[in-house]
């Protein structure tokens, strides 16, 4: 093996960093049967799918160990009802009114580590924990539409809903919070299930430790095709530079990407054949305009802001991973509107002159200063710094301190921010976007008991909640799509919240690892059971 000066320096640097972090990646990464992924965290919170407080890194590990009754196709979302694939349920059907859903379970599915066969009892246990108001679980809201769940026999589950939901498989069944737990193991382990998890997935947890990472091994009795790789190792390197070096030196096969302009280009300069797996749309970046604050209560000021912000330019800064938004639904999803189908006055093509004219009309021709604040997290800060500069060009100055990320969210929830940017990812279920971001019941409250509607839309300007009720009573998927477009137009008319860009979640992958499928869309974690690593 020849060692160039550059590789040597890279490897030495990474080794130094790794040693500094107390990691011992090198020895394990050398084995061909192991795929190593470095996540941008310091450790995991829990590996139990219903545990509250879990984040993206936990999802990455849980995704390999658990199954739900149905799944979305590998590497994408299910955009339409017919896109879902069988998992622990072999087949399912729903009534025409989308109120009753029947699932037929696969026979002979085994839980990890000898915890026996998965049956309807485990499914009931899992769903009932979510339905029990006294048990604290994550994403309880998703399950609120379930009226009852029954098991006529060991291999059949019947779920009835309160309101029709043609995408019930997407809203509930395929989510990680509905992954099936082992009743026996859960009752036996209690709290320790968090780090001694038992699932039905292709991998099981071998060992976990903040310093060494989470080591997963292939589960020999997995119900589907066996995992293509013997071991998965998830390690934790929060520091961007250290993580990038670990990747450059080959110690990590995959790493969490960095959402800052030019990062992908600079990675490509270092090694041209790096593969970037990017979810599209990824996270949605919404800019809320607080309708209770001056001068944002004036529609002309909001229109001026809309004309002054150039979504295309912000997307361009990020390159291929970002896409400009039109309304609040990402262009990849059903229900979104395109500029072509909008009337002229709702297109809002970038026009700083028109913005200045609107401000002058509102009596703010001499300029205006709006106090707000932003999170120091890279993606938030980058987008808002560009917005700040674009608004400065038309005479709107954002007096915008940069604050710590958790404080930012806590203060936003107490209605302290006039213009909060909010980055969040959504599956293709537009109802959730609207109910969480702009509906009346989700209006933010100063005492922190409100929701994520930071603009007070619905409360200050009514109308949205009637449209949302209409959509939630509609069983037909096609009819829902039409109402979504109507809602999008209403929001573009009132401008309580602006869609800025969607920003893909990026993972850099060494080309020696083959995922077995292409990542196109989906959440910020994906299955590695078909992934192979060349020696």
């Amino acid at each position, binding site marked *: 093996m020849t060692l160039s000066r550059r590789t040597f320096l890279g490897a030495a640097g990474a080794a130094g960093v790794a040693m500094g972090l107390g990691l011992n990646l090198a020895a394990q990464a050398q084995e061909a049967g192991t795929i190593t992924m470095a996540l941008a965290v310091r450790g995991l919170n829990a590996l139990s799918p219903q545990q509250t407080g879990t984040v993206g890194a936990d999802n990455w590990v849980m995704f390999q160990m658990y199954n739900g009754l149905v799944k979305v196709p590998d590497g994408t979302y299910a955009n339409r009802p017919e896109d879902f694939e069988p998992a622990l349920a072999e087949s399912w059907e729903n009534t025409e009114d989308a109120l009753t859903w029947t699932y037929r379970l696969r026979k002979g599915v085994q839980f990890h580590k000898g915890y026996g066969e998965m049956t309807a009892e485990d499914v009931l246990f899992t769903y009932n924990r979510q339905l029990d108001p006294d048990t604290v679980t994550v994403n309880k809201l998703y399950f609120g539409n379930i009226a009852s769940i029954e098991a006529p026999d060991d291999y059949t589950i019947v779920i009835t809903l309160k309101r029709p939901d043609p995408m019930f498989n997407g809203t509930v069944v395929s989510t990680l919070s509905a992954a099936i737990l082992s009743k026996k193991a859960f009752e036996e382990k209690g709290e320790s299930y968090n780090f001694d998890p038992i699932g039905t997935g292709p991998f099981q947890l071998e060992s976990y430790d903040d310093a060494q990472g989470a080591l997963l091994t292939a589960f020999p009795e997995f119900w589907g095709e066996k995992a293509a790789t013997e071991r998965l190792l998830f390690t934790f390197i929060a520091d*961007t*530079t250290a993580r*990038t070096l670990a990747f450059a030196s080959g110690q990590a096969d995959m790493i969490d990407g*960095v959402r*800052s*302009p*030019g*990062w992908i*280009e*600079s*990675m490509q*300069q*270092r090694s041209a054949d790096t593969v970037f797996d990017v979810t599209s749309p990824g996270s949605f970046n919404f800019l809320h305009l607080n309708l209770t604050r001056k001068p944002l209560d004036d529609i002309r000021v909001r229109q001026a802001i809309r004309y002054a912000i150039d979504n295309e*330019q*912000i997307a*361009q*800064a990020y390159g291929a991973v970002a896409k400009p938004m039109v309304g609040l639904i990402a262009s990849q999803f059903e229900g979104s509107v395109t500029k072509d189908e909008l009337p002229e006055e709702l297109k809002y093509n970038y026009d700083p002159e028109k913005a200045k004219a609107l401000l002058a009309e509102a009596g703010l021709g001499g300029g205006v200063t709006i106090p707000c604040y932003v999170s*120091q997290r*890279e993606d938030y*800060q*980058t987008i808002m*710094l*560009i917005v*700040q*500069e674009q608004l*400065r060009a038309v005479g709107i100055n954002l007096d*915008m*301190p*940069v*604050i710590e990320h958790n404080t930012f969210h806590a203060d936003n929830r107490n209605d302290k921010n006039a213009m909060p940017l909010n980055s969040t990812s959504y599956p293709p279920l537009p109802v959730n976007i609207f109910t969480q971001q702009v509906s009346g019941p989700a209006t933010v409250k100063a005492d922190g008991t409100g929701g994520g509607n930071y603009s007070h839309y619905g409360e200050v300007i009514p109308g949205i909640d009637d449209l949302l009720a209409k959509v939630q009573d509609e069983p037909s998927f096609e009819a829902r799509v039409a109402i979504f477009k109507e809602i999008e137009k209403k929001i573009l008319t009132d401008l309580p919240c602006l869609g800025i860009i969607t920003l893909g979640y990026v993972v850099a992958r060494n080309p020696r690892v083959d995922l077995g499928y292409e990542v196109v869309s989906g959440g910020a974690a994906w299955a590695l059971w078909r992934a192979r690593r060349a020696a």
Partner: protein
Amino acid sequence: MSLLSEARPVLPPQPTTLDVVRETLLGKPGTIFAVLVIVIFVLVAILAPVLAPYDPLAQSMIKINRLPSSENWLGTDQFGRDVLSRIIYGSRNSLLFGLISPFCAAIVGTTLGVLAGYFGGVIDRVISRVIDLLLAFPELLLAILIAAVLGGGFWNVIFVITIAFVPGFARLARAQTMAVKREPYVEAAISVGVRTPVIIMRHIIPNIMAPIVVLAMLWVASAIRLEASLSFLGIGTPPPNPSWGNIIRDGLNNIFGSPWPIIGAGAAITLVVLAFNLVGDAIRDALDPSTSSSE
């Protein structure tokens, strides 16, 4: 007994602080170089709007992470902003903090120190214990502590650095005051009934100024470093306004995109801090009898 009637030998006039400064600054080639560097950076800061080739805040998404070229001498950052212009404008923030903070700290610290040293007793004990308390924390830690509570922003940073530096000045002023207070001319003034504020302003303060000025000079460099550290940690000058510290911070996450912001701002900090340290050392050497080599 009359103090006034006693004949005293006539002493040659003491060199004023200004004389010492002038002599010291032009004494050694190293110091001349340092003074030159400081003068140049001060001029750059004052003339920033004239010298900077671009608006330091103007972004350009088609010019991200450019390497140095004839168009952008130090390249551009991840927002396509001109790095040289940002460093030039950043010198304003860095130098302002460097000069204003020790000045404020000197005023506050000297006041406290003189009060403690002159009056003694309870006042001295209270002030001294508070100062001891503050001295228990390293300057940077103290500054981070306060900045974390107050948040960034121009006056907050000045306040933070001032507080961090006050104990040093107070200690020095107290010790000097206690020494000067026992001088015959102060005792004389007291005995003829000169009012206390007059004694402090006319007799004490002028006589303890020299070491205070030296300390302030020495701490200009520390203040610049402290501001850079705070901005680097994200609690100093808030973006998008440039300061050398936050240019380095922004550059660190983007180090693989372009290392030039870090190199440029790092070099600027190094040069200025080195220059102020050289000048400060020279002044101290000239004034401090224990290290003086002029005789």
